[in-house]
């Protein structure tokens, strides 16, 4: 029987791990989990000490270069994710899954020879569920909410202060042309190609849209000062990542797991009432 105060944690835990399970299944069918990698040769550790340790301790030998090891790793990854959904109060399962998922994220980035962030965020969001005491969990979950606001605010600061792309008016058209040249070449007759061509022929629309998206990232800083606008802050990452999906040909949809940090207690209560099995 789930304690009354624990219901919020259970609902969020099952939503987060359910989302992660869907992402993993999606990646499994796209041949992007270790059992499908077929012992790739090229790799990229970059200048990341964690990746250096990953290589130093020969983890790839176990989860990538051993066929049996790769299959066993996939089974463990999926198995622990499912167990985390079934037994949200068993912290040891969640902790173990977090480390498995971190290894998967590092493996994926190492062998696509590019260090992308969405998967590692999925690891970070599991950390609050390591904590047994409700008040510790609650504080870590709240911390995660601030971290999400920080991610987008920092992204804006990079563009406006450090990298300066925010003040470069032609960033929108430059980005779209760069990212979609290959698609436009291979699929010239599609509806999407016609849409892109229209926007490329009217670059001011892309530049306005690009500036708007950058500003939405900057708006996330509001979350540091008040929770009053969490309903809006929840929608901003959806708009940001959908627009980059369409206009920059990048797949950051997995980062939308971060939307759950803006759920209020009454949201989880509503989900618990509408979907009673989530609290069984």
């Amino acid at each position, binding site marked *: 029987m789930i304690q009354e105060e624990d219901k919020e944690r259970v609902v969020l835990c099952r939503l987060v791990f359910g989302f992660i399970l869907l992402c993993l299944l999606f990646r499994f069918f796209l041949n992007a989990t270790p059992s499908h990698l077929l012992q*790739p040769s*090229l790799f990229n550790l970059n200048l990341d000490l964690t990746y250096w340790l990953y290589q130093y301790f020969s983890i790839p030998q176990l989860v990538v270069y051993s066929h049996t090891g790769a299959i066993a790793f996939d089974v463990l990854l999926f198995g622990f994710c499912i167990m985390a959904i079934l037994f949200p109060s068993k912290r040891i399962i969640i902790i173990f899954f977090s480390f498995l998922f971190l290894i998967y994220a590092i493996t994926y980035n190492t062998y696509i020879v590019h260090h992308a962030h969405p998967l590692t965020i999925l690891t970070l969001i599991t950390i609050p569920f390591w904590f047994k005491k409700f008040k510790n969990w609650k504080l870590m979950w709240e911390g995660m909410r601030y971290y999400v606001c920080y991610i987008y605010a920092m992204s804006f600061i990079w563009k406006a202060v450090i990298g300066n792309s925010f003040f470069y008016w032609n960033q929108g058209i430059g980005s779209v042309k760069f990212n979609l040249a290959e698609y436009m070449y291979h699929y010239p007759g599609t509806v999407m190609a016609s849409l892109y061509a229209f926007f490329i022929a009217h670059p001011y629309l892309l530049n306005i849209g690009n500036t708007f998206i950058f500003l939405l990232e900057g708006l996330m800083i509001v979350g540091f000062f008040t929770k009053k606008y969490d309903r809006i802050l929840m929608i901003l990452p959806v708009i940001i990542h959908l627009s980059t999906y369409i206009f920059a040909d990048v797949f950051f949809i997995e980062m939308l797991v971060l939307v759950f940090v803006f759920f209020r207690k009454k949201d989880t209560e509503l989900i618990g009432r509408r979907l009673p099995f989530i609290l069984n």
Partner: protein
Amino acid sequence: MGSGNYFVRLFHTNKILFVTVVIFCLLNLAANFVFKAEHTPVYNWNLYAYKIPEQPAYTFLEVKYNDGKTLTFPYTFLEPEKLFFTNTLDLFIYMKRNEGNDPLKFYIDNWNTNHPLFKKLLSGLKFYPDTEELNKYPAWFIKYLEQYFKEPVYKIDVYEVKVAYEDDGHVKKLTSTLIYTLL
């Protein structure tokens, strides 16, 4: 301020957690504002932070296999699999054109020279791929391609395609040059 209250509450609830969270925050700020470098799980959030000027022409690699069929990815959601093809092939061609040297070789070698402790502690670690991995790459690419198409592959050519945008927003091909035959 909300975050101020948060840290005060965290301090009063669990001091170990408080210290851990504060260190994590400081590391993040230092990584982004001072060092401009990332070490998992501390990240730089700098995607699209730098200017992307328009170019007169855009170049990319095109893979043709068997009887001239082209390896393409019609949907963005295929990216998790696509990157295994496109990113690794870009790196392979780069290394082929640069005497088998990884683009990070000189940077990492230089870093290791300036940080001898790390080099000593991690002695034996292969920091970047070299000719050994380069030579194995075509065989892996063929296997991965066969897995993707679920059919045997008996020929693979890599072309370098150069395109330019026209006034109506569509692209036209400028050149297409065969640069490598993997199989």
